């Protein structure tokens, strides 16, 4: 469904992604692992074309989306949930959801405001509250809900567990597993290996913008040297 090949991305002069390539199949949950600064966020931003790759190709559903403007990438069915959450703090929850609203599509689960409120009951209670009145966990739910309003085919979740209480992270794990049941394809970037192992089918380890490992968590367990070198738990 998503195919990345030979991706090179820069921030200013810093070479962040180095010939990165991997594929994701429909219905899969893939975890991008690696230490801070390894290039996980840049990978996500490069897929969304928020960072323009210098070279390489991103193909989604058979279509080349490299160098497309980000809003077209989003309309094409890629939903991006950024690391810093970036909810619109001056807008109410309902208005935040409205910003994310896009037309339905036939080949992806469709979401309505009501369905999302059912999924995240906390948000429902506070639908007229402004974003800035929400707690960190609620903000994280809102940012996911907002992206789902675009009815994406593939969801990119950047470090969803960062800075969230363990008890909320556990709920989030359940939510992500539910997305998977609905047929959504998900890529999450994570530093918390415990969490990644619960939700993802496959792990991709990135270090210095290069792919160092691509396989199941069972395979990863068998290669402790890789785990220790790049994840160092």
């Amino acid at each position, binding site marked *: 469904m998503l195919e990345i090949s030979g991706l090179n991305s820069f921030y200013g002069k810093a070479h962040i992604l180095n010939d990165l390539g991997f594929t994701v199949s429909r219905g899969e949950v893939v975890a991008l692992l690696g230490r801070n600064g390894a290039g996980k966020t840049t990978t996500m931003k490069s897929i969304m074309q928020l960072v323009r790759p210098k070279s390489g190709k991103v193909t989604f559903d058979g279509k080349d989306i490299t160098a497309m403007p980000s809003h077209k990438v989003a309309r094409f069915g890629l939903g991006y949930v950024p690391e810093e959450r970036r909810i619109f703090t001056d807008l109410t929850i309902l208005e935040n959801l409205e910003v994310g609203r896009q037309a339905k599509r036939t080949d992806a689960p469709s979401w309505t405001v009501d369905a999302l409120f059912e999924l995240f009951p906390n948000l429902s209670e506070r639908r007229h509250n402004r974003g800035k009145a929400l707690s960190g966990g609620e903000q994280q739910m809102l940012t996911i809900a907002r992206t789902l309003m675009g009815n994406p085919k593939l969801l990119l979740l950047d470090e969803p567990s960062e800075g969230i209480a363990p008890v*909320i992270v556990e709920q989030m794990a359940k939510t992500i597993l539910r997305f998977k049941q609905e047929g959504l394809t998900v890529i999450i970037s994570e530093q918390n290996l415990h969490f990644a192992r619960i939700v993802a089918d496959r792990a991709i380890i990135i270090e210095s913008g290069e792919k160092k490992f691509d396989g199941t968590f069972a395979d990863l367990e068998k290669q402790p040297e890789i785990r220790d070198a790049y994840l160092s738990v």
Partner: protein
Amino acid sequence: MTAVLKVENLVKTFGGVKAVAGVSFEVAPGELKALIGPNGAGKSTCFNMLMGQLKPTSGKVYLNGENITGRPPRDIWRRGVGRTFQITGTYQSMTVAENVQMALMSHHRKLFAVRPYAYKLYRDEALALLDVVGMADQADRACAILAYGDLKRLELAIALANEPTLLLMDEPTAGMAPRERINLMQLTADIVRDRGVSVLFTEHDMDVVFAHAHHIMVLNRGELIADGTASEVRNNPQVQEVYLGGGTLYEQETADA
């Protein structure tokens, strides 16, 4: 022995809502203490009151027996409280050494001097502090090109510049990789041991908390619901319910500190 930090019934309300609802605790000399809790529990508000960014609605904060409630941050710093930020706040346009020199200039009250060249002042002292955090070899690099983990270490060196008796660290390992986290906390523990500094820190990574904190406090909805050792806190049913959850997300086997 008197407590380094003593907090008495601290309260902060925002528009009628109690963000911090009567919190009392102490930090003993040489203690490494963690403050944990769900987002929005009041940790940041609490920290900001300790450091003077926010004025408490009521309650008292004592530092080494002296009442410092409601004083501005720069005053509290001068009384021996260093701090590091969740999002690093370093001087991007200066070198690593100059960042520390800046804090030393402040410590020695040379901020408004107009005669000497600043880059020459207190350089040796700065290098010594950078050595403590293992950054001496990067002293003359521009701060703007440092890796994130190095920025965190630099901030720690800055926080040590006024020979503090207490360090307040707001989510010191946020945004760091697991190994960097362990290294930074090990470094902090060494500083506590070697310099007799007390540390109070907030943290979300339970592996870090359980591995390093001598005592742990749990804040929920503005109130302390637990204050004890790692095993006491871990086995507290209320803490499990509001914060820790089923325990799938942190190492189970970590020994109690």
